[in-house]
């Protein structure tokens, strides 16, 4: 039978209760965890055995939902994706603080609403100006693998906000859109099905948009999914410049198939998709 190694670690956690505290303070917990335990496991252990008042946000526990972003031992990381042994400092110490650059709601819970508002502002969906959502039901947009490669890296974003926290420009400019929304703006601009370049340029091509990025590159260093927002922002700036110089024109270039794609016919017994529950209007 394999022996489970037990570690004794000290968690230094930044606490803040909005109804009791004027400002945050540090509190230490000494806990025992098994080898391989994640920082999130350690927080669960504290809540279960020591302090049930400790607040933090998490959901999937496997690096997919992006809820448990925290400042762990001085660097933004996902708590569920980080093993305690990777982040020990001064022997057996782990520091855990809420993500900076966002207001603290309680303890380790940041208010990420500004992040999602900025994300929404860049219209993170396919825009077909003047077209309906699905102009010819039953047909599909055609896209080559090369066209897919232009943006697929940026579709892996889980909106955890770590890039916004690592960005030194966002630390001093709250109006800066930030790495995540800008990377998502590029993700759709680079999509051959999209026709919303002008709409997004009005938002992302401003002084607080892509041009505010000066390539500190920290967003790409901390991204837990390898999305590389710094690359997306530089490519976004290039699109803006080339478009300004009239070297390229942006319109949705993808064409529609003339009917259902061959081999994609509905199998017998598979029900029809339900009817739309909203009225289809042209997207602007």
């Amino acid at each position: 039978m394999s022996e489970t190694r037990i570690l004794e670690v000290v968690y230094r956690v930044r606490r803040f209760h909005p109804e009791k505290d004027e400002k945050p303070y540090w509190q230490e917990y000494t806990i025992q965890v098994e080898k391989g335990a994640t920082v999130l496991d350690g927080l669960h252990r504290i809540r279960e055995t020591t302090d049930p008042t400790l607040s933090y946000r998490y959901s999937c526990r496997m690096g997919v939902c992006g809820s448990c972003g925290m400042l762990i031992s001085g660097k933004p990381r996902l708590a569920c994706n980080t093993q305690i042994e990777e982040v020990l400092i001064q022997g057996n110490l782990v520091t855990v603080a809420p993500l900076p650059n966002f207001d603290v709601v309680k303890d380790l819970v940041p208010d990420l609403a500004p992040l999602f508002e900025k994300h929404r502002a860049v219209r993170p969906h396919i825009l077909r100006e003047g077209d309906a959502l699905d102009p010819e039901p039953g047909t599909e947009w055609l896209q080559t693998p090369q066209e897919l490669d232009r943006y697929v890296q940026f579709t892996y974003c889980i909106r955890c906000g770590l890039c916004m926290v690592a960005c030194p420009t966002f630390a001093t400019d709250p109006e800066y859109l930030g790495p995540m929304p800008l990377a998502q703006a590029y993700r759709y601009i680079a999509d051959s099905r999209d026709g919303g370049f002008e709409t997004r340029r009005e938002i992302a091509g401003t002084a607080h948009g892509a041009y505010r990025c000066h390539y500190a590159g920290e967003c790409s260093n901390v991204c837990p999914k390898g999305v590389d927002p710094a690359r997306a922002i530089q490519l976004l700036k290039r699109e803006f410049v080339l478009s300004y110089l009239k070297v390229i024109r942006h319109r949705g270039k993808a064409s529609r198939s003339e009917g259902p794609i061959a081999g994609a016919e509905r199998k017998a017994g598979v029900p029809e998709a339900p009817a739309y529950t909203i009225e289809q209007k042209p997207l602007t």
Partner: protein
Amino acid sequence: MVERKRYDNRLGFWGWLGGGRWGFERYVYTLHRVTGLGLLGYFLLHILLTTSRAFGEPAWTAWMDRVSGPVFRYVFEPLVFAAFVIHGMNGIRLILVELGFAVGKPEDPVYPYRTSLNKQRPLLVAVMIAAGVVLAIGGVDFFGMGH
């Protein structure tokens, strides 16, 4: 709706410098901004100085006397030169990078992730070496045998 108290956790200027354990590009970013602010201060002083000529030769001479001392000659002037070289050389890299050169094409994120930072790092090293060479030549001129 009840307004709840929140704590403003923005890093501010500490976000430029603090935190530690960051990548090399972040320190170059900070250096670029600090040298840029230094050059801005120099240009303001420069404009002030040259404007004094409009008030006649005595005003001009008085200003020149103020900025001819050893502190300006051996501290501020070399600093302005160093700021100019570092800001200019790194600026060339930033122009190239911000036009999408040297950052590579989007690629599938496969762990361990390689980012655009890895792609542009040879360019960064090259401009830093070039800046070092120019600074060394300038250093000989500022502090060399002839002075």
